[in-house]
Structure formats: structure tokens, C-alpha cells
């Protein structure tokens, strides 16, 4: 049995079902609409597991599921050394969203990370604390800012409605996922011209095969053949 983890609700689940369906593998929810059980037609031995997109990286790394569909941003954020622990099998071409750094439009002096760094230094001197950036992508943002030599900032955890934190004065800037930028603009924010941290999309990952049985390897081969990977 080979377990495939798929987001348990919403557009990500529907699009994933469509993507597999178009390639001859039918995924569907079994039982009632509220039940998180799934079924697969087209590949013998492949089992569908429905779970939260945010938990799929961890379950893949632990080996509780063998394959998983989730956003490439979530894998990079949640798994240290992600490229050594899971492998990208297919970029699925939907669920696209950019993780970006955005600041108030009124900051006409800030267009690049270089500007952000200078503004952060002045802000700290003026206000006595480090410029706050609200995000839920702590690792990705921290590594990006470190690699780009930005200092004197702090990350504030925000698990939702992140665009509103600036207006509410709990943060000065944000790092969040956006697909069209509309919510950012509606909240008086703009994206830094070099502030793209990661262009994310739904991706089919597989975990480490170290402990797989010959049967599981055979199922993967069959799946790769059907999906033309």
C-alpha cells in the first residue's frame, strides 16, 4: 500500500482531483461530504489520505504518507533541508501564489530590500524597537532577509489577516502569500521590487524511499508510468 496525501478541502483538493483525473487516476472522497476518507481508481495499491495541506510536509518527512500534494512554500517553510528529505515529482501548475515582502504605499522612499534595511535602522533609532514584519513563514522570511543582509527587524507571528496588521499598528511591514496583490493594495500596501521570497505552486512530492517495500516501489513505478513522470 502506498499512501498519497492530498489537501482535505477547498480548491486545492478539487484541483488536485482534476489534475490526477486528467491523467487517468480518479481520486474521490468516499462516504459523506464531511468524512475525510478517500478512494482511488486506476492504480492498484494507491491509498488516498485526506489531511490539512499544512500537515502534509511533516507527514511526508515522517514517512506516515509516501506521496503528498501541497504548496511548495509549505514544504520549504516546515522542513529543514527540505530538498534532502523530500523530492519534487511534479509541479502541478495551479495553486500559484507568491510569498512577498510588502510595505505601506506611503513609504515612497522604500522600493528595495536595501531601502527596507536603511528604513529599519532609522526606525529602530526613532522608536527604540526593531521594525516589525508580520508573517507566518518565519524560516523562509528570516533566511531571505539574512541572505540579503537586512538587519534591525523582528518577525511577529501572524496566522491570518496579516495584511491588516500594519493598519492596526501591530507591525510595520508584512511577508505573506499573494496571488493577485489585490488584498495588499486594498490594505494600502505595495510589494518591494526585489521582495519576492518564493513563487509557490501546488506540487506532488514523494518522501524518502529508504524504508519502502518492493511492493511500494512497484506501485510508485506504475503511478509514474500513468502520470507520465
Amino acid at each position, binding site marked *: 500500500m502506498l499512501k498519497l496525501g492530498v489537501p482535505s478541502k477547498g480548491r486545492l483538493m478539487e484541483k488536485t482531483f482534476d489534475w490526477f483525473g486528467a491523467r487517468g487516476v480518479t481520486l474521490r472522497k468516499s462516504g459523506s461530504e464531511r468524512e475525510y476518507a478517500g478512494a482511488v481508481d486506476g492504480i492498484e495499491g494507491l491509498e488516498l489520505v485526506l489531511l490539512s495541506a499544512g500537515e502534509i510536509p511533516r507527514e511526508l518527512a515522517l514517512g506516515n504518507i509516501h506521496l503528498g500534494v501541497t504548496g511548495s512554500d509549505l514544504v520549504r517553510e516546515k522542513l*529543514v*533541508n527540505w530538498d534532502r528529505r523530500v523530492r519534487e515529482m511534479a509541479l502541478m501548475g495551479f495553486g500559484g501564489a507568491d510569498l512577498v515582502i510588502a510595505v*505601506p*504605499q*506611503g*513609504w*515612497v*522612499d522604500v*522600493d*528595495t530590500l*536595501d531601502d527596507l*534595511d*536603511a*528604513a529599519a*535602522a*532609522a*526606525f529602530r533609532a*526613532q*522608536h527604540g524597537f*526593531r*521594525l516589525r514584519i508580520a508573517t507566518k513563514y*518565519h*524560516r523562509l522570511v*528570516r*533566511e531571505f*532577509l*539574512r*541572505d*540579503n*543582509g*537586512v*538587519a*534591525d*527587524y*523582528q*518577525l511577529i507571528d501572524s496566522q491570518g489577516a496579516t495584511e491588516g496588521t*500594519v*493598519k492596526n*499598528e501591530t*507591525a*510595520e511591514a508584512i511577508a505573506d502569500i499573494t496571488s493577485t496583490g489585490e488584498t495588499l493594495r486594498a*490594505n*494600502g*500596501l505595495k510589494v518591494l*521590487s526585489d521582495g519576492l521570497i518564493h513563487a509557490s505552486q501546488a506540487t506532488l512530492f514523494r518522501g524518502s524511499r529508504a524504508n519502502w517495500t518492493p511492493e511500494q516501489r512497484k506501485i510508485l513505478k506504475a503511478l509514474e508510468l500513468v502520470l507520465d513522470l
Partner: protein
Amino acid sequence: MPTSPATLTEARRLRDHFAAQGAIVVKADVLQPADLLLDLYGEDIRARAYLTADPLRGEKVLRPDFTVPVVQMHMETYADPARYTYSGKVFRKQETDETRANEYVQVGYEVFDGQNPAAADAEVFAVIAAGLAGLPLRAATGDIGVLMAAVRGLRTTDDRKAALLRHIWRPGRFRALLRRYGSGEVPPLRAALLATDDPFASAGPEVGLRSRAEVAARIAALRADAEAAPLSSDETALIDAILGLRATSTDALSVLRDIAVDMPSIGSAVRRMEARLDAMAARGIDVDTLDFEGSYGRTSLEYYDGFVFGFYASDRPELPPIATGGRYDALTARLGQGRAVPAVGGVIRPDLALEVGKC
């Protein structure tokens, strides 16, 4: 991981060695307040140390080193000169290399002595070297103070010097700033902003804590910067020469003296280096073969602002340094609430010393 009995014995031996130099044995709490480290190092510390939330006491950190608590202890009692030694575990998150230990014993030696900094530098280096005597190690040294003096002496605006000093520890950003200041170019969007009569014409409503006055102040700073003369290519070449310097200490001193002819601002830092090399030679260190690197110590997440050094296993390049240390005068100023004490120190990892000794 429990510390092996052999490591504990070696740690004890090293601590006794340091105590025999007149150092007082001190201890520090494992859990330290996190705000101080966050203030000093910023968010990067979260990738390097274990931070944990305490519902009553706020954010705490498992001590990533002893230097900060020892400095705090010293600034409270303030008996100068003073020597301290300690032995205990430190905790370091390893986010990229799983083979590196995330908890290990450090044995340290710290000297607070404002009378003769060059002699104190030499003392710490020599005492650490003596603790590691007989091991197949190579020493690397550098001097952040020379680089800082060079930046302070540049013929440019104070704002530019402050920006460069702020990024001494971030070589990539430092180099980018140096290049920009040298080019005299203004990025197109910035030029457009400076050219408009009303920069806030299409700024939209004011949102957030950073006020319009602060934005206006930065625009004024950008305007002053755009009008400032570019950094001369002679001066950037001298900075490059300092950063690229790799030689024996004696030769490096000679090169730096040459540079000081064109860049008098590094004169006193170079004289301090000369006094240090004399003091090291007097302690039996062969400075004619001791490596010196102009960039050494810039990429570690540390607070050194003068002499810096490390001891590395000659035949085991994969091992972390067996011992590291340096001068951290600025740290004592930041922790001393106005007071500052010249301070220099170093640590040895007894587990690695044993590992190297086995070969």
C-alpha cells in the same frame, strides 16, 4: 547527549589551567533572558539558539555562550582588572548540518583589563594555545579593529560610514554598499523620487506606525547621499586590500603599515597590532609563521571588534574550530549602560580537543 567522562575530565583540566592564571571560576544560568540577545543579534539568533517561551518571564534562551552572562556579571561587580573562567554546556541549533553537535561543553577564559589591551590580547591567545599544547592545530588570526578604523577614516559622509559599520558583519551587504558609494550612481526609481516636487503626491493614505515625517527624513537623507561625492577608487581599493590580506602576521603588519601611509586613520589600530605581536612574541608565540587574514571573523555571529582568533585541526577540515576568541570592547559598552571595559576572551571545546588528540 550526555557528556562523556573523558570530556568532563578534559574540561576540568582546562578550567584548572585557566584558574591557575588567576581566573575566578564563575557559573551562569542555563536559561538566559532572550531579549538581550535579540537586541544584540536580531532575528538571526533564532536560527542559531534555542528560544523558548515562558508564560511568566517572557522569552528565554538556552545559553548559546557564556560571554554575555559573564560580561553582565562583571559589569555589576566591576572589579577591574579581572579574569574569569567557566566550564559548562552551551546549546546551538543546527539548521543545516545535522552532523554538528547542538549541545557541547565550552571552557572559557575572559580578561577584563583596560591597562594594556595588547598584553591582554596576547595573554588570552597564549593561555588558550598552552591549553591546547601538543595538538596538531593551526591558528588563524585577524583584527576587526583595523577594518573598523579604515571605515571610520573614509572621506565620506557620516551616514555612509555608519551604514558600512553597521554591516561589517554582513560581508555581502557591506560590499554592495561600498560599490554603490563608489559608483556615484543613483538607482533610477530613487532618482525619480528625488526629482519630484511632491514625493507624496501618489502615496495614498498614511498607514502604520512609521510616520510621514520619518519618510520625509529619509528622503532628505537620500538627497544628501545623492549629492555626496562618490567614494574615491583609491579608498575602496585600500579597503579591498585590507579585506584581501592573507599573510603571516609579520608580513601582514608590514603591508598594513604601507596602507596606513595612504590611510592614516588605521594608524593607531596598526600600532595596537604591532604592540600585540610584540607581546605575543614575548610570550613565545612565533608571529613570523602565525597566519593573519584581513577578513577573519567577519562571518561568525559574534561581537568581536578587535583581535580575533581560532584554532583549527590541521588534518580535519570538517571539524568546527577547536577554540575561538577575540576582543569585544563594544559589547561591554552596550551591556554596561554607559560604562565600558576593554575585554578579550576565548573558549575551548574539550570534546574536540580530545577528538583531535586521538589522531
